[in-house]
């Protein structure tokens, strides 16, 4: 991997981590209404996959969607503004954390329904095929979604039509409170791909270089018209299901132990230095840039006007 790519992967991961930290602070200050779901611990997946995508490629995201949104190129100020319910937010305060979309960058939206984005990405891939473009769709979803009907129906449809779509299953080990080891009778979710006639690949989702490599193959395959792939990235969710989750379903030792042994950001840093793709000083400089950018984004968002009143016309495109 070349140095700019490696440093950009780090930058995206570090931005996601900092965004989640900053959102948590804002939530603690009672500035965010509703709920937020932290992507901390899973940054390598969004970064490694989206590095291969163009602005005109599509993604569908999840309730835990901040990371995908950032990796697909979203503006941080507009993201914070949405969390703060401002008119300047991506959804003008109509959607909130669980519904951020950025169609200008091909982000077809976070989704409050587990598995809700999987057929939508499949349909986006159908558009690419139908119009004869080389666009690709990527659907991000969790281990929980792999047990929804939409997963099975969509994978089958994409396989029989050889659609340019990559299904990225982020196994963060918990579907809300239900551990994957109890929710699946198989250890490797990727073997399900065989049942639909597509390649299934299981990788260490904490290692951004590994994710980057596997996603590159799957996306290239889709772009060449060779059909869909199921890519399962093993990961771990550092925080609870939502902000404030008491996490009664997880042993304390697991939370603390896994946070340190399963930290993709620290791993990425160590890997970049070890492979001489960058120095500690360069990485520190990136950190400072991100922190400054984050504060500017928060300040911009907080200065934005509140969401404008609803109008009857906004629900329908043609009234």
């Amino acid at each position, binding site marked *: 991997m070349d140095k700019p790519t490696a440093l950009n992967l780090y930058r995206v991961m570090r931005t996601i981590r900092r965004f989640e930290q900053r959102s948590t602070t804002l939530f603690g200050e009672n500035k965010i209404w509703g709920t937020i779901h932290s992507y901390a611990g899973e940054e390598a997946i969004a970064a490694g996959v989206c590095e291969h995508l163009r602005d005109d490629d*599509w993604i*569908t995201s999840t309730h835990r969607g901040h990371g995908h949104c950032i990796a697909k190129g979203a503006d941080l100020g507009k993201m914070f503004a949405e969390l703060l319910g401002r008119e300047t*937010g*991506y*959804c*003008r*305060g*109509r*959607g909130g954390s669980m*519904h951020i*979309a*950025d*169609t*200008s960058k091909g982000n*077809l*939206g976070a*989704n*409050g*329904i587990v598995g*809700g984005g*999987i*057929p*939508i*990405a*499949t*349909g*986006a*891939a*159908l*558009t*690419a095929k*139908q*119009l004869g473009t080389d666009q690709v*769709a990527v659907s991000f979803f969790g281990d929980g979604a792999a047990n929804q*009907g*939409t997963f099975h*129906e*969509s994978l*089958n*449809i994409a396989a*029989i*039509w050889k659609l340019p779509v990559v299904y990225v299953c982020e196994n963060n080990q918990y579907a809300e409170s239900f551990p994957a080891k109890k929710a699946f009778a198989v250890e490797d979710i990727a073997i399900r791909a065989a049942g639909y006639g597509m390649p299934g690949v299981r990788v260490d989702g904490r290692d951004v270089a590994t994710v980057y490599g596997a996603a590159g193959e799957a996306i290239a395959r889709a772009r060449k018209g060779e059909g869909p792939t199921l890519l399962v990235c093993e990961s771990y969710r550092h925080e609870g299901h939502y902000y404030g989750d008491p996490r009664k379903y997880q042993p304390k030792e697991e939370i603390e132990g896994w946070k340190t042994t399963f930290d993709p950001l620290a791993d990425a840093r160590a890997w970049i230095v070890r492979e001489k793709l960058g120095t500690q000083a360069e990485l520190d400089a990136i950190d400072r840039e991100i922190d400054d950018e984050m504060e500017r984004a928060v300040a911009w968002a907080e200065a934005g006007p509140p969401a404008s009143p609803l109008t009857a016309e*906004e*629900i*329908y*495109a*043609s009234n």
Partner: protein
Amino acid sequence: MPPIRTAPAPSAGAGEDGSVREMFYAEALNDALRIEMQRDPKVIVLGEDIAEHGGAFQVTAGLLAEFGPDRIRQTPISEIGLVGTAVGAALTGLRPVAELMYIDFSGLAMDQIVNQAAQNRFMFGGQARVPLVVRTQGGSGRGNAAQHSKSLEAWFTHVAGLKVVMPATPADAKGLLAAAIRDDDPVMFIEHKLLYRTKGPVPTGEHVVPLGKADVKREGTDVTIVTWSREVLFSLEAAAKLAEQGISAEVIDVRSLVPLDKDAILSSVRKTRRCLVVHEAIKRGGYGGEIAALVAEEAFDDLDAPPRRLAGLETPIPYAQPLELGVVPQVADIVNAARDLVNG
């Protein structure tokens, strides 16, 4: 006595070449699909059994030969998969028409219709458009029993972001389907299984009936019957019988439930001073309640009697024919209800 208008509605007009042809309702739908697919390559059709088989009710017959398997996309029996794929395609630039073979199967696809298609535009702050048509059919009368005979339109009228259309005549079926395909919002297009083999004059060529415009299918002065889908035909028969008894009934076919042509209903009711709403769906929670409430709220002072609903019984649709006929309003039921309303 005003004539029963079986010719195209005034808003329909004749085709672009001015001619009109007798068509079955299924044929008129097929004509709309063909014309819309010819004029816009982004229109595709997805559904079960729609290709060689031509659809369970033959609405897509012949389209595979003309447009090929890329545009007539037959899907596995995967209701949420096919509707969700259509939602994604609509969000990204196509204008898909997804066919759900029976409205009773919509429960399997409900998340994609309700949480995704209907709400994407609003949730995303106006960034998205979802030009999707979900064609389906409902209704009883064919011995298909409880899981293939329901009238579920009220479910969809309750969801902000959806439009709901229910044509009663071949001309309206063609014109409303064309309008639904050209519309930039998700439309539930609900046909009736016993209307497919009904016949009527249909404008040839391009024919568009705007959504949200009711049609006065028969003019009258003593009572307004507000109705849709197959009950329009029953109501017209009932109106003819009522005329023999000296009662002049006006029959309003709402055609689209969302958006609803409130003005057409209210101005008719203000004229006749009586309103009977007739639909096949179960009365409890049915859309007739919405219309009766609208009339009571907006035209109370103009009424000589409370608005009345005549609708399906609160039961799953039974199988045996005499039982099945007994649970949804028939012509005689409409005659009796209208007469009672007029005679107080």
